[in-house]
Structures are given as structure tokens and as C-alpha cells.
């Protein structure tokens, strides 16, 4: 808190702009894109002045030796008017390019943060806190940013043609997507309860609207209402848990809560109650059994590209909050929460895998598979070691790229059918369109955890961390559930390659954006599986936390 010393002077708080530069860029981009959309026929009237301001800001930044953010601002300031000029009558293409360049810029800025602010020169990480401790720039923040920005960057081209085909490519899609991304990245950086709560709501509110994007599709509307009601209740429960933590400790900062909770004489009953409510609330957000009820309906009803985004990015952001809450604020109560989380993880892994077995709808099946994967990622959390922490972060990245590829193939198949994608729709896909079938099989193998894909390395790392921390029974359950899961993933591959196609099945659609998105995620699935060292090293470095 900065308060005025006397009536005439006001202490200006010292703001470390570099600590949230990517989020600043994305927020600005979202607002400008909204303005551009409102301007309709007079887009240049908005885009040109914004471009001038952005370029001017960039030149000023470069002249003060902040070269990389300056360059990003200049590039974005030039790209937006250029896009408006190039596609004067295609508003959604302008939006997509504006958002895409902003997301790429955010990735560049994240790399710049790592080199100049976080890095210690030897590939390790020096965690820092900013804004009087409200933000933590450390491993969780860095890795969450990479996963979320990468996911959004892949989702943009994946969804462009799909939204156009369904006639729901309205102007609010890209700004809302960017705002959700900002919320997720902020959730990864949040180091006090207020920031954490606001970030969680920013991403949730944007996602409620995106889920209900198809206004004429009742499934989308029902999914949106269901997500909203469940999400609002979960937020309220989480918030009450946070309030009880404040009652017990008298602090909102996570590291301070952590040190106070560890002291004897703190009100253990109130902190335990707060911990329980926080676990319920955050369990909803990352979809752990028994708080998973919304997941299948919302994943099935939402437009498929939004589902892909939710599955990959929300999970990463939610687990960032889980890691920070449990490892920074509640390590003193480890004896209480570790067994509970372990049971939740075991239930998620088993329940998700078994229920996915009987699903006929592909999106619903992938939803249950996401519940299973939430269980695997939790193994790294209950390990409470650096290996577990980096294992969870790494696992979420591998899950994100695999699930993006799988949903990309679902989009390809769904676009021609314009409806749900059932298992029978995949019959003979291996003969009629081997590329889509092959990539879908590859991504499913990665979700099942087969070598040489990214999913194998991901599972290997979290299982290893679990064993080292003594959670052998949990890892055994994980392996068992992987075997069950492998069965239904392989069944899809069997339907695609072994059965013959019906003649009247339409072929999967393809467009440049969709092909690019699927190709990039498939490449990442293979690359992270064959050459994981570079990213594994980053994940290890990311175990450095602001505590």
C-alpha cells in the first residue's frame, strides 16, 4: 500500500512494467480489436491512429534501450493497419491477424523476459516478485505463459474456417480469446489472493461467453448456462475459502500465508476449512472428479475450437493456480491436502478412463479424457518436490499440444458434417483421408502415452516424480488407467483404419488455417516426444519459485 505522506506529495508506486509486458500487449490488442470491430466500414480511422501510437511508443522504447518490446510494438503497430488495408471487407480476417500477431509478440516478450529479467545466464531462473509482491515472475508464470500463448496461437488458425462455416465468426471472438489468455497468464503470475481471484474471473467470464458463441445452437446455449452456473458457484466457494485463509492468517499474500500457516498457534481449524473450500473451488476449475460434472456437457456443447482452447489452456492455467496455492501458500498443511488430492487424482484417472470407454461422441470422449489427464497432472502436485513441479508443468504442455491436434482433426471432420462427430463417422477414414486419420491417431497415441510421442515423455516424468516422492500406489493406478485409456484410443484408431467407409460419408474439410494448425500441433507432438531435452531443461529450471 502506497499512501501519501502529506497532502501535497504522492509517492508514485514503482511499477516493473517488464514483469507483465506480454499481458499489457494482449490487453491493448484486445481493446483495439474491439474498437476496430465497432468501426465497421471506417476501420482505418481506428487502425491508423492506433498504429501510429503503437509505432511511436515502440520507437520511444527502442530509443530508451528497451529494444525487444519496442520492436514488438512497432511490428504490431504496422501489422494492424496493413491487415485492415489488405482485407478491407473481411473483418474477421483482420481480427484473426491482429490477434495472431499480438500472440506471437507475447511469445517473443516471454522469451525476452526469460533472457533479460529471469535468466541467470546459465539457463537457470532467478524468480522475482513485482508490484509489491502481487505478481511472481518465476517458473510457473514463465511456463504457463508459454503453454497458454502457444495454445491460443494454434487455436486461432484452427478455428477461423470453422467459425466461418458455422456463421459464428463474430467480431467478439478474438478479443474475448485474448482476454481469456490474459486472465490465464495472470493466473500463472498471481502471487496474492486478489490477483488470483481477478485473473480466474477474467478467464472464466470470457470463456462463458465464448462457450455460448453459437447463439442459434441450443446445445451451445445450454453448455454456456451450465458452465456459468457451475463456474459461478465454484468461484464463490473458492472465494469463501480464500476469505477464511485471510481470517486465519491476516494476509492476502501467498508466501506470507505460507509462513503464517506453518507457525504453531495459527487457527488450524479455520485454515483447514479454508483449504477444503479452496480445494473444492479449484477442483471445479481443473475438472477433478467429483467436481467434473460440467466438463462433458460444456466440452460437447461449445464450438469445437473453443473446446480445444478450454481443454488445453484452461487446464494449464488452472494447474498453475493449483501449484502456486498448494506449494507456496499451503506447504505447512501438506499432511492434510496431499492425501486428499491424491485420492481425487486417483478417482479422476479411473473414472475418466472408464467412462470414456462407453462414449460415442468424440468431443465427449475427449472431455472425459481431459478429466483423466487432470488426474495425471495432479500426481506431480502431490509429490511436493521440484521434480513433481516441473513434471506437472511439462505434462500440461505435452497435453496441450496433443489435445489441440486431436481437436483440430475433430474440427476437420465436423466441418463437413456440421454437427456432432460420433465414433461411426470415423469409419474408414484411414482410406478416404489418410492424413487426417494419421494425425488423429498420432495425437490419440500421445494422449494414451505411447512412445515416441510427447505424451509418453509427459507421463514418464510425472510418474517418475510420483515414485521418487513415495506415491507408488498412485502411480500404479495411473499406469492402470493409462492401459484402460490406451484401449479406447486404440479403438478409435481401429475404427479409422480397419473398418470400411460408407460411401456417403463426406470427406473432412481442409483449409489453409486448419491444415497449418493441425500440422504445427502434430509436429510439436513428435518433436517434444523425440527431442524433449531442451524443454525438459526449461521445466527443470522452472522449479524455481517465489516463496
Amino acid at each position: 500500500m502506497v499512501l501519501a505522506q502529506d497532502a501535497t506529495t504522492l509517492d508514485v508506486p514503482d511499477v516493473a512494467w517488464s514483469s507483465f509486458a506480454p499481458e499489457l500487449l494482449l490487453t491493448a490488442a484486445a481493446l483495439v480489436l474491439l474498437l476496430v470491430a465497432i468501426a465497421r466500414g471506417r476501420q482505418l480511422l481506428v487502425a491508423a491512429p492506433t498504429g501510429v501510437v503503437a509505432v511511436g511508443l515502440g520507437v520511444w522504447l527502442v530509443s530508451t534501450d528497451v529494444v525487444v518490446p519496442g520492436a514488438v510494438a512497432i511490428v504490431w503497430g504496422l501489422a494492424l493497419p496493413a491487415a485492415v488495408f489488405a482485407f478491407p471487407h473481411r473483418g474477421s480476417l483482420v481480427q484473426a491477424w491482429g490477434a495472431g500477431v499480438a500472440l506471437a509478440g507475447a511469445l517473443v516478450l516471454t522469451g525476452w523476459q526469460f533472457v533479460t529479467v529471469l535468466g541467470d545466464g546459465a539457463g537457470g531462473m532467478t524468480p522475482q516478485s513485482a508490484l509489491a509482491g502481487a505478481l511472481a515472475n518465476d517458473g510457473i508464470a514463465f511456463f504457463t505463459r508459454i503453454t497458454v500463448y502457444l495454445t491460443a496461437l494454434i487455436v486461432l488458425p484452427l478455428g477461423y474456417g470453422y467459425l466461418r462455416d458455422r456463421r459464428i465468426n463474430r467480431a467478439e471472438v478474438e478479443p474475448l480469446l485474448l482476454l481469456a489468455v490474459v486472465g490465464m497468464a495472470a493466473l500463472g503470475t498471481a502471487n496474492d489472493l486478489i490477483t488470483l481471484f481477478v485473473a480466474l474471473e477474467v478467464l472464466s467470464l470470457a470463456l462463458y461467453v465464448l462457450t455460448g458463441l453459437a447463439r442459434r445452437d441450443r446445445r451451445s446455449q445450454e453448455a454456456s448456462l451450465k458452465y456459468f452456473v457451475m463456474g459461478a458457484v465454484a468461484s464463490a466457494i473458492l472465494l469463501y475459502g480464500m476469505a477464511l485463509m485471510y481470517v486465519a492468517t491476516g494476509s492476502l499474500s501467498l508466501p506470507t500465508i505460507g509462513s503464517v500457516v506453518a507457525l504453531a498457534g495459527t487457527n488450524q481449524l479455520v485454515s483447514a476449512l479454508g483449504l477444503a473450500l479452496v480445494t473444492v473451488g479449484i477442483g471445479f476449475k481443473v475438472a477433478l472428479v467429483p467436481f467434473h460434472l460440467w466438463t462433458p456437457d460444456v466440452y460437447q456443447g461449445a464450438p469445437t475450437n473453443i473446446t480445444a482452447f478450454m481443454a488445453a489452456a484452461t487446464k494449464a492455467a488452472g494447474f498453475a493456480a493449483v501449484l502456486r496455492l498448494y506449494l507456496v501458500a499451503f506447504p505447512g498443511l501438506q499432511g492434510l491436502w496431499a492425501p486428499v488430492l491424491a485420492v481425487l487424482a486417483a478417482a479422476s484417472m479411473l473414472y475418466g478412463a472408464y467412462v470414456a470407454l462407453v462414449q460415442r461422441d468424440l468431443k465427449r470422449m475427449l472431455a472425459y479424457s481431459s478429466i483423466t489427464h487432470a488426474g495425471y497432472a495432479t500426481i506431480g502436485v502431490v509429490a511436493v518436490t521440484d521434480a513433481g513441479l516441473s513434471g506437472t508443468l511439462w505434462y500440461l504442455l505435452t497435453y496441450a499440444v496433443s489435445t489441440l491436434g486431436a481437436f483440430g482433426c475433430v474440427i476437420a471432420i465436423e466441418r463437413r458434417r456440421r454437427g456432432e462427430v460420433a465414433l461411426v463417422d470415423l469409419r474408414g477414414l484411414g482410406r478416404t483421408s489418410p492424413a487426417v486419420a494419421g494425425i488423429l491417431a498420432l495425437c490419440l497415441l500421445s494422449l494414451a502415452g505411447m512412445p515416441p510421442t510427447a505424451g509418453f515423455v509427459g507421463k514418464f516424468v510425472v510418474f517418475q516424480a510420483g515414485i521418487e516422492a513415495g506415491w507408488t500406489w498412485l502411480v500404479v493406478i495411473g499406469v492402470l488407467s493409462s492401459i484402460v485409456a490406451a484401449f479406447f484410443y486404440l479403438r478409435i484408431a481401429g475404427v479409422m483404419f480397419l473398418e470400411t467407409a460408407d460411401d456417403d460419408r463426406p470427406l473432412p474439410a481442409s483449409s489453409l488455417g486448419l491444415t497449418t494448425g493441425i500440422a504445427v500441433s502434430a509436429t510439436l507432438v513428435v518433436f517434444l516426444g523425440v527431442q524433449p531435452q531442451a524443454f525438459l531443461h526449461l521445466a527443470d529450471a522452472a522449479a524455481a519459485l517465489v516463496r
Partner: protein
Amino acid sequence: MEIGYYFILSGLMFCIGLVGVLLRRNAIVLFMCVELMLNAVNLTLAAAARMWAGPDGQVFVFFVIVVAAAEVVVGLAIIVNLYFRRGTLDVDVPQLLRW
């Protein structure tokens, strides 16, 4: 008055809201129950801020109020749109998605 009474009152308010969410089926009433839960949290935070004699809890209350307002905007838009689609506010009525 003892500060503990405020915590008891806010706990009761929270429970009433939670029970309402679980039992009632009208989307607007569900929504009001969620607001009741959020206001219970605000009361807890304000009382705790008094107890710890610091501004943190009161600052948090302002953020909760702002977020609750934003939630009302989004939530009512969703509810109104759904009402136009199917003419009822009962969240259990026709379901295309199985729970």
C-alpha cells in the same frame, strides 16, 4: 459486538446461498443465490479486515463487488438469450446435453 458473530452470520448466509443453488431450479433464483454467497464472502472479508486492523480485506471487498457486477452482466445475457431460445428459465427443463 463480538467479531465472531459476524463470521457466524456470514457463514449462515453462505450456507443459505449454497443450499439455494442446490435446490432451486429457476436460473434467476440460482443467480441470486450465488450473489448471496458472494456477499457472505464480503461480510467475512470486511469483518476480518477489522479484526486484523489492516486495509487488505476491505480492498479485496471492492474487487469482489466489481467482479460480481461483471458476472451479472455476462450471466444475465446468457439467461436472457436462453429464455428467447426455449421460453423457460427452468434449468432442468429440456436438455439436449445429458448431465
